[in-house]
C-alpha cells in the first residue's frame, strides 16, 4: 500500500481530530456544516477558469504528463465487463506504453467487486492497486447491510481501495447523521483497504453542498473524497474539484491530517489533466502532487497522455493506432 493512512503532512502540527461533539446528531452536524463559509458560485467558477489559463510547456509539461499517468485510476465499470477485458486493462496499467519502458505505471485499476480477483491475479505485487466500487454503486440505493456485504466481498477478493457512494437522497434530505454513520461503517468494513467517498456532485448540484459533503466524509474518516461515479452528468468539473481541494487543505490546517482528492469522469485530454494539476499545485499545495493524494478516475485519458508523452520525447505525433486500446 503506497498510501499512508491518515498520515500528516511534513512539519504540520498534528491536532487531535476529535469531531465527536459535531457528529453526535443531525442537528449538531447541520450546525457545523451550514456554518462553513459559503461558496460564491460566480467567483469560484471564475477562479477555476483563471487557473485553467496557465500555460504549461516543455519541462513542466513533461513533469505533469508523467505525474498524471501515475495518478490514473484506470477504470472500466460496464455491464459488459468480462474477465478478458479486465485482464487486458490490468496489463495496460502495468505497461501503459509497451514501446517505452520508461513510462510509469498507473496508480490503480478500478473495477466492479466481482472483477477484483481477476484484476488482482494479473497485477499481483506490481505496485498497481486494485480499486473496487462498492455500496450499491452507482446509485447507492440499497440497505446498509447489503452495502457492507458488497464492501467486504471486494476487500476479501483483494481490493486495496474501495470507492463507495454516499446516499445522496439522505444528504439532500438533511439526514447528515445517516450519511456520516454509513461512511464510518463502510470504512470499518474496509479493514486495511483505503476508502474513497464518492459524492456524485452532479446530483448534489451546489458548491455549498460539495463543501459540506467534503467535510462530512473527512470527519467520517474517508481517505479520499471523489467527485463522481462517471454515470451522472456533469461528472468531474474544475470548480467542483477546486472546492474539494480547498476542503482538504482546510481540513489539514485544522487537524494535521491529509485527505486525497479524486475527480472522476469527463477528464479525457492531457490539457484537461494539466489544468487539474495546476489547480492541485496552487490551491491545495505541492504536498498533494502525488498519487497518494490525488487521482484521476479515467479511461480514455491515459491514451491521450501517452500520445502527448511520445510527442514530447520524439517531437512527433503518432496516430491512435500506435497505442493500445484496452
Amino acid at each position, binding site marked *: 500500500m503506497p498510501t499512508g493512512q491518515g498520515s500528516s503532512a511534513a512539519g504540520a502540527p498534528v491536532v487531535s481530530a476529535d469531531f465527536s461533539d459535531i457528529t453526535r446528531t443531525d442537528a449538531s452536524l447541520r450546525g457545523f456544516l451550514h456554518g462553513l463559509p459559503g461558496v460564491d458560485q460566480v467567483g469560484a467558477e471564475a477562479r477555476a477558469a483563471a487557473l485553467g489559463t496557465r500555460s504549461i510547456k516543455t519541462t513542466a509539461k513533461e513533469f505533469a504528463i508523467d505525474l498524471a499517468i501515475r495518478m490514473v485510476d484506470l477504470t472500466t465499470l460496464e455491464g459488459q465487463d468480462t474477465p478478458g477485458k479486465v485482464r487486458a486493462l490490468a496489463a495496460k496499467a502495468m505497461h501503459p506504453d509497451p514501446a517505452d519502458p520508461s513510462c510509469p505505471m498507473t496508480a490503480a485499476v478500478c473495477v466492479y467487486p466481482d472483477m477484483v480477483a481477476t484484476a488482482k491475479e494479473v497485477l499481483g505485487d506490481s505496485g498497481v492497486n486494485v480499486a473496487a466500487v462498492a455500496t450499491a454503486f452507482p446509485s447507492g440505493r440499497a440497505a446498509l447491510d447489503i452495502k457492507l456485504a458488497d464492501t467486504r466481498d471486494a476487500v476479501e477478493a483483494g481490493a486495496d481501495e474501495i470507492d463507495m457512494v454516499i446516499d445522496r437522497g439522505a444528504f439532500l434530505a438533511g439526514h447528515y447523521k445517516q450519511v456520516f454513520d454509513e461512511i464510518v461503517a463502510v470504512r470499518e468494513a474496509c479493514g486495511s483497504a483505503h476508502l474513497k467517498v464518492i459524492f456524485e456532485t452532479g446530483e448534489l448540484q451546489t458548491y455549498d453542498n460539495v463543501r459540506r459533503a467534503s467535510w462530512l466524509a473527512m470527519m467520517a474518516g474517508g481517505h479520499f473524497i471523489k467527485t463522481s461515479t462517471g454515470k451522472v452528468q456533469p461528472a468531474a468539473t474544475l470548480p467542483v474539484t477546486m472546492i474539494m481541494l*480547498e476542503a482538504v487543505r482546510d481540513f489539514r490546517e485544522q487537524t494535521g491530517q491529509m485527505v486525497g482528492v479524486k475527480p472522476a469522469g469527463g477528464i479525457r485530454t492531457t490539457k484537461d489533466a494539466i489544468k487539474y494539476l495546476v489547480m492541485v499545485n496552487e490551491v491545495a499545495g505541492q504536498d498533494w502532487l502525488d498519487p497518494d493524494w490525488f487521482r484521476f478516475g479515467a479511461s480514455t485519458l491515459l491514451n491521450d497522455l501517452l500520445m502527448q508523452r511520445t510527442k514530447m520525447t520524439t517531437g512527433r505525433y503518432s496516430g491512435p493506432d500506435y497505442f493500445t486500446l484496452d
Partner: protein
Amino acid sequence: MTSPFQYAPAPESRSIVDIKPSYGLFINGEFVDGHGKAFKTISPATEEVLAEVAEASDADVETAVKAARKAYDKVWGRMPGRERAKYLYRIARIIQERGRELAVLESLDNGKPIKESRDVDIPTVAAHFFYYAGWADKLEYSGFGSTPLGVAGQVIPWNFPLLMLAWKIAPALACGNTVVLKPAETTPLTALLFAEICQQADLPPGVVNIVTGAGDTGRALVSHPDVDKVAFTGSTDVGRAIAKAVAGTDKKVTLELGGKAANIVFDDAPIDQAVEGIVNGIFFNQGHVCCAGSRLLVQESVAEEVLDRLKRRMATLRVGDPLDKNTDIGAINSAEQLARIKELSDIGEAEGAGRWSPACDLPSTGFWFPPTIFTGVSQAHRIAREEIFGPVLSVLTFRTPSEAVEKANNTPYGLSAGVWTDKGSRILHMANQLRAGVVWANTFNKFDPTSPFGGYKESGYGREGGRHGLEAYLR
C-alpha cells in the same frame, strides 16, 4: 520548499507586433512630424527603448484641433448615426482581429501581464466600440437628445492605455463628435496603433487625431478655445488643474480621478472567493487602477482567518516578465511611479503599520514592486488616506456594519467599493449607504461597457459607459 511542479517559461511571442523606430503625430488621417522635442517610450519590464515618439507643440495641437473641427463641420457631425455606426463596428472588428498584436504591444509598453491585456483590456476595448456603435443611430432614445458637442479634447492615463482610449473615443464618435486625444507619455504606442486601425477602417480624416506628449501638450489641448468638451482620466491633482483651466468657459467637462476604495468583507462572506476578490481588487494591473480596492475593511471576527488565507494566496502570485502567459503581476509602469509607491510604503512602515510581502524574486532590470500588505492600519495612517496606485493593500478592521460604512466613506474619494457577504439584504443596504460611484457585490474590478462608471467627491464627475456615458457627449 519549492514545488516540484515548476512552470517553464511560456512567453508570448512579440514578433506579431511591428514596432517602428519612431512615430509622428496622427493628424487629419495621416502621420505627421511633431514640432516639440521627441521622447522615448520604454518597456518598464526591461527599460529597453521601444520607440521614439514625437511631442506635439502648441502649434501641432492647433493643427489637430483645426482638423477635428473641419471633420466635424464637413463630415462627421452631419453624417447620419447609422453611417457612423458602420465605422465604429468596423473599428471594433479590426480590434478583435488584431487583438493579439494589440495585447502584446500593450504589455510591452505598459508592463501589465499579457494574460490581462489579452483577456481583459483588449476584449473590453472591442466590446466598448461594439456597444457604442449600437447607440449611434438610437441617440434620440437616449434621453439626452441627439446633438453632438463638436470637438472633444481627451487626455488619458497610462494604466489602461487602449481601454481608456476606447472609453473616450467610442461614445464621442457615436454621438457625432470628433476628437483630439493625448495618450500618456509613458504608454503612447497602442494609441498610435489605433491610429493605424482608423486608417484601415477608412475613418474620414480628422475624426480621430492623436497627439503625443506630456503635461504641456495636455495643457495646450484642454485649454484650446475651440475645444467644446474636455474629458480627462488621471490623477486628482491634474484633474483639479484642468477644472481651473476650463472654469469660466462653456466647455463641458468630465473628470475621472483617483480613488481609495474600501473592499468590505463581512464575517458571513464566501471567504475563499473574498480572498480572490481582495487579490483581484488590489493586485490586478499592479494596483494601477483608480478603482482599486486599496483599503481592505474586514470584520474583526474573521480578520485573522482572512489574512492567513490572503497571505497564503499571495505566495502563489507570480511576479515577472509581462509577456509570460503565467505572470500574475507585471512591472510598475515607470521609475517615477515606483518611487512614489516606495515612498508611501516606507511612510506606512514608519507610521507603525505591519508590512508583509511574500518571498519573490524580482528581475534586476526594470521597475518592480512586490505585492505588499500593511496590517494594523488605522484611518489616521497616510497609507489609508492617500492613493498609492501600486500593489499595496492597507488592512483595517471593523466591528459592525455601521462602522464599516463610516470608515468606508471617510475618505476624500468616492469611486468604488466592494461588499462581501452571503446576505442579499445587507448588500443592498450597504450599496445605499456607500458614497461611491460603483459598488461591487461579491466581486471586484468588473468592467462592462453597458455599466456607467464614475466617482463622487475628489474622484471626479460625470459618468462613462452605458447610456449614462452618452450624456457627456450630447448637447
